[in-house]
């Protein structure tokens, strides 16, 4: 792609962007739509790269912008819209992965299942990833690790693990799937956006 190509990219200087954010916070829909045109394609590309589902990435982006509009009064203080949007996107991706992992009963079916026929590149990638996962599991707090190993080495279901350890199934799931609270630390505005 050569630089002179007349594509429609939106170029805003930092000061224009700050002005735009201020005006949008005051309810100027034009300013909001400019921000949308500036950032939505980037947001979709970014989220899609992680979740590998373009339609869902569009929906998620739509959701983010809609909530931004609804919470516009609180948005006047945003210093860098780009940085703010990044944090929001990252949170949305993590959130999506969480839900996906819970829904797929990944421990039993996916995470430790034998690898399907895949390309050499992918198998190398998957192998390295597995090593990192193993390392993470090894460094987990005791209870969490025990649950993982029961699940992995003994092939026990969440129900069976719950019975064995005398804890609820939900706790087992939490241990296995819920990422650590430290990772989820999000700042004020993102909480506003996601209502959590």
């Amino acid at each position, binding site marked *: *792609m050569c630089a002179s*190509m*007349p*594509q*429609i*990219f*939106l*170029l*805003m200087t930092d000061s*224009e962007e700050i002005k735009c954010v201020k005006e949008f916070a005051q*309810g100027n*829909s*034009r300013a909001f*739509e*400019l921000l949308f*045109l500036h950032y*939505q*394609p*980037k947001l*979709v*590309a*970014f989220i899609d*790269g*992680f979740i*590998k589902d373009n339609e869902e990435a*569009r929906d998620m*982006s*739509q959701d983010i*912008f*809609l909530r931004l509009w*609804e919470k516009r009064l609180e948005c006047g203080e945003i210093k860098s819209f*780009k940085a703010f949007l*990044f944090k929001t996107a990252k949170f949305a991706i*993590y959130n999506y*992965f*969480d839900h*996906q*992992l819970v829904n*797929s009963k*990944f421990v039993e079916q*996916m*995470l430790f299942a034998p*690898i*399907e026929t*895949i390309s050499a*590149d*992918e198998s190398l*990638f*998957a192998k*390295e*990833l*597995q090593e*990192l*996962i193993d*390392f*993470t599991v090894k*460094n987990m707090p005791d209870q969490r690790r025990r649950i993982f190993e029961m699940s992995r080495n003994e092939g026990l279901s969440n129900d069976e693990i719950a019975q064995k350890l005398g804890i609820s199934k939900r706790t087992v799931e939490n241990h296995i799937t819920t*990422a650590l609270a*430290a*990772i989820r630390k999000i700042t004020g505005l993102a909480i506003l956006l996601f209502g959590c």
Partner: protein
Amino acid sequence: MNIEQIIRTYFNSHFSDATRRKFAWWLVNSPDEEKAKETTMEHIWEESIGRIDMQTLNDLEGLRSKMKYNGMESGNASGRRGYWLAAAAVALIAVTALTTYLIHSKLMTSGDEFVHISVPNGQTRQLYLEDSTSVTINAGTTLIYPRHFSKDKRNVFLIGEANFDIMKDAARPFTVETQSINVTALGTKFDVQAYPDATTASTTLEEGRTQVEIVEPDTKTSGMKYMMTPNQNLTFHRGSGEVALTEVNAKRRLSWEKGNLIFEGEDFKTILQALERKYNVTIICEHTERMGGEYYVKFHADESLTEALDILNKLSHHFTYKQEENTVYITPVK
């Protein structure tokens, strides 16, 4: 592989479900590496390029309708009536104005002084550029050009449709840039059509010679160049990247200048869009695809919208319509 390589490899690849889940698990579950992950993701975010395309504009439309809905629901609409009314108006004008703003702000950064002219729906306008080139700008169109051309080239940017009658100057080729195609000429008469909401971009040559380059990125014809001779039309299909070169009667085809609208094999939606621009109305018609593809029809300059719609109805005899102020509702009949 380090953390950065893992995330980048994943981001740029399409792996199996199982591998994707491994990645998902690793991404959200290993807190020690969180800082490095965040840094890499932020770099990828910085590098991610999004291009505004039809889908973006559709999404914007969707967002607008939801914004409108929510605003009304929560009773926040007071004082914003003007906006909601405007938001309900045609997408085209707003989007054109916005994209204009974007390109304008891009061009502005180059330091030259640019003029931009937007011709609203329902009008056309003729003007002369610095080099005495004559441009007739069709309805719903924006043209951006430098107040002074440089020594070695004459470039303008078009969103919409215009006819060009280029002043001959062999030392300074004249290029009409659009989002999808660039048309370059030395001295010649031609038309370029590249509306942002259309699925095609096209150019028709009346006299002289032009060279057309496909600049829409990521299609199979990206970067390809075509030489055109008089009475040829080149139509680029933005979705498929297909390019069609056909023989046409250029004078007839380009007589929108005189207020006529001529279609030779265009589909129903294209005709409605042209009528919207000529008569400055919003035409709402669901299922335009049911109305078929190939229309050969000429609307005369002095015909009213009602007359034009009646002609169209005779040709397709498949719809009923009603007009409320500036909006026309067309309902296909089964």
